[in-house]
Each structure stands twice: as C-alpha cells, then as structure tokens.
C-alpha cells in the first residue's frame, strides 16, 4: 500500500511538473512581463540574456522578437481600463508615442497571427499615419469603418495590438518608461 502511494506521488509530481512547464511555455509567467497601463512588455527578450521562462514562451509561440539593437516592443491585450480588446468594441489609440526613428502598430490575434481585414490593412507605420494639425497622433480600431486612421479589427473574438519602436532611446530594460509617455487605448463604445 505504502509502495503504491509512493508511486502515485511520483506520478503526480511528474504530471504536475510537465503540465506546469507546458503552461508557462504557452502563457508565460507574471515575472517575465511588466505592465504599464494597457501595455505590457518583456525586457531582455531581444538579447542573449533572456530568462529561461521568456525563452520557452518565445520558442513555443514562434515569436520573432525585436532584438535590443533594433528597438523595443509593447503589447496591449487590454484597454486602459483593463478590459480585453474585443471585436465588439471600437477603440482609439492616441499619442504620445515614445521617441524613436519609426514606430509601427500592428493588430493580430492573441497568438500573433495577422488577420485578413478590409483594405488588407493590419498595421500603421509612423510614416503613413495621417496627422492632423494641432492634434496628437490617433488611430481608430474597430470592426466597422471609422473616420481617421482606421485599423480594421476582426468581425468577432479578441485581438491584441503590438507597438514596435525602432531605434528608440528607451533602454533594454525600459526603466525610464512611464505610463504617461505611452499612447492611451481608450474604448469608444461597444455593440450591444
């Protein structure tokens, strides 16, 4: 009896250990990401000093991260109020954008795949976004056409936005990042 329960304990440990590894490789762990308002980021992903958890998540997700020498990327899966970005709602992403040579804003599924959307547009770059005199840069995200810089969202489900800053003075660990220097992601309204 005692032998059987020892075997059961070993098996339980084996299954739990494997399950935990698969879980953190898929979803990451809290301590390898930081959150600032709607935006989250993982320092050191683009260098050799990446931690084992971030490395596992990067390899399993198939992500091609920005190298430290290229720039820095931030991901928003929620709006400024912490609600998941949903195709039912429309959002405005508006400045300020951190200093850098270029930035791009890309809409994907939560697992990083581009979405076929009207106009074949899945992103904006800082060079092509329309700017209006006296106003901060703004992009409208939603599944229905919106005035301004419209970034079409999928017809249903949830999505994420990735802001990539190329050649930015932000350090690799982004210790100087503060919420007020990042664009806001404001929900404009939702379909009933």
């Amino acid at each position, binding site marked *: 009896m*005692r032998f059987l*329960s*020892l075997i*059961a*304990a*070993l098996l*339980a*440990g*084996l299954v*739990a*250990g*494997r399950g*935990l*590894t698969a879980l*953190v*490789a898929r979803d990451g762990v809290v301590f390898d990401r930081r959150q600032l308002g709607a935006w989250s980021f993982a320092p050191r992903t*683009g*260098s*050799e000093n*990446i931690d*084992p*958890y971030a*490395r*596992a998540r*990067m*390899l*399993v*997700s*198939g*992500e*091609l*991260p*920005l*190298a*430290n*020498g*290229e720039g820095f990327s931030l991901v928003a899966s929620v709006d400024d109020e912490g609600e998941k970005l949903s195709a039912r709602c429309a959002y405005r992403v508006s400045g300020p954008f951190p200093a850098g*040579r*270029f930035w*791009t804003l*890309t809409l*994907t599924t939560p*697992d*990083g*795949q*581009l979405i076929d959307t009207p106009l074949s547009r*899945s*992103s904006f*770059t*800082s*060079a*092509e976004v329309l700017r209006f005199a006296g106003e901060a840069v703004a992009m409208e995200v939603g599944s229905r056409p919106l005035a301004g810089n419209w970034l079409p969202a999928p017809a249903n489900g949830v999505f994420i936005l*990735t802001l*990539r800053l*190329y*050649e930015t003075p932000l350090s690799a660990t982004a210790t100087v990042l503060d919420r007020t220097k990042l664009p806001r992601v404001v929900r404009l309204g939702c379909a009933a």
Partner: protein
Amino acid sequence: MTVFLHLFIAFVVAGLVHIGGLFALPRTTTDDVFSTLSRSVTGNGIMLIPEERVRQLRFVDPNVAIGVCRFDLAAGPFRVRTGLSETFLAVVFAREQSGIITSVSDRAATGGALDVVLATAEQLRRIAELDESGEAIEEIRVPSPYRTGIAIIKVLVDRPSGRANAENVLRAVQCGSEALPS
C-alpha cells in the same frame, strides 16, 4: 505523516521535472521562428523571405522585409555586407532552438554600407593580429559564443510602395564565410 512525506515527494518531483523540462525545451522544439527561418535557406548567400511568408510568421512586424543567411564559423569568420535603406535596417544574429545572439543596426554603418563580421573569440584575436597598425577599421566585429546560426537582415517598409526598394536592398546583401590566412 506518510501523507505529508508523499506530498513533499510529489512537490519535489514536480519541481525537478518542471525545471528540467524548461531547460530541455530549447533542445526539443523545432517550430521556433529561428529554426523555421533557417530551414528556408537553401544554398549559400542570402535568401529573401517572400512577403506572404513573412506575414505567416507569428508576432512579426508585417512592415519589414526579411532576408536570411546561415553561418558556420568553422569555415572562418562570417561577413555580412549590405547597402543602406532609406528607412531602417538591422542585422540580427540568432541561433536555432535558442534565440537572439546579438544585433547591429544601420546606425553603425560607415561610408554608406554596413559591414559586420561575426567571429569566435579566437578568430577575433587572429583578425586583430592581422590588422595593419594605423589603418582605420570600418567593419563592425562581433564575437559569437556559438559556431552556427543565422543572420536575419531586416529592412523596415515604412509604406507599401517601399517594399520593392527594401527587397532590392536585401537582394544585394553579401554574406558568407571568409577563411583567415594562416
């Protein structure tokens, strides 16, 4: 008492299996983006990744054009020489099943070109010995702790009409091993 002992054993085993699995994962994965890009390279020189293929990669910026070269430092230091883009260009050295080793952006370019040499510490010492004193060194020398891997050359496409130019910059990239004189 036995129950607590068995619970403790289960926790210890779970912890060991978790840590072991985490460190073994890079050796067992083959679907990571670096392995995928490496497999797409056929032959020597740069392989331009078609736009449709770039768009299929996950968590990738669709506003980049990508070219890939494979390196093996056993054949000598590896040189990447590229002209510049009007937008942004970077050379990223990475390793399959592992991740990014290092990167150099076009900010380091001199004389209208970016010339990067990747080499082992030993090869870098030999290169330094061969340098002629007083001569300006215009190439960027980067040490690599690994013998093999890939160089990913990325050019930012700042607007759709710029893709052809970005891909032309990539097609002109020269990359390959250079044997050192003995």
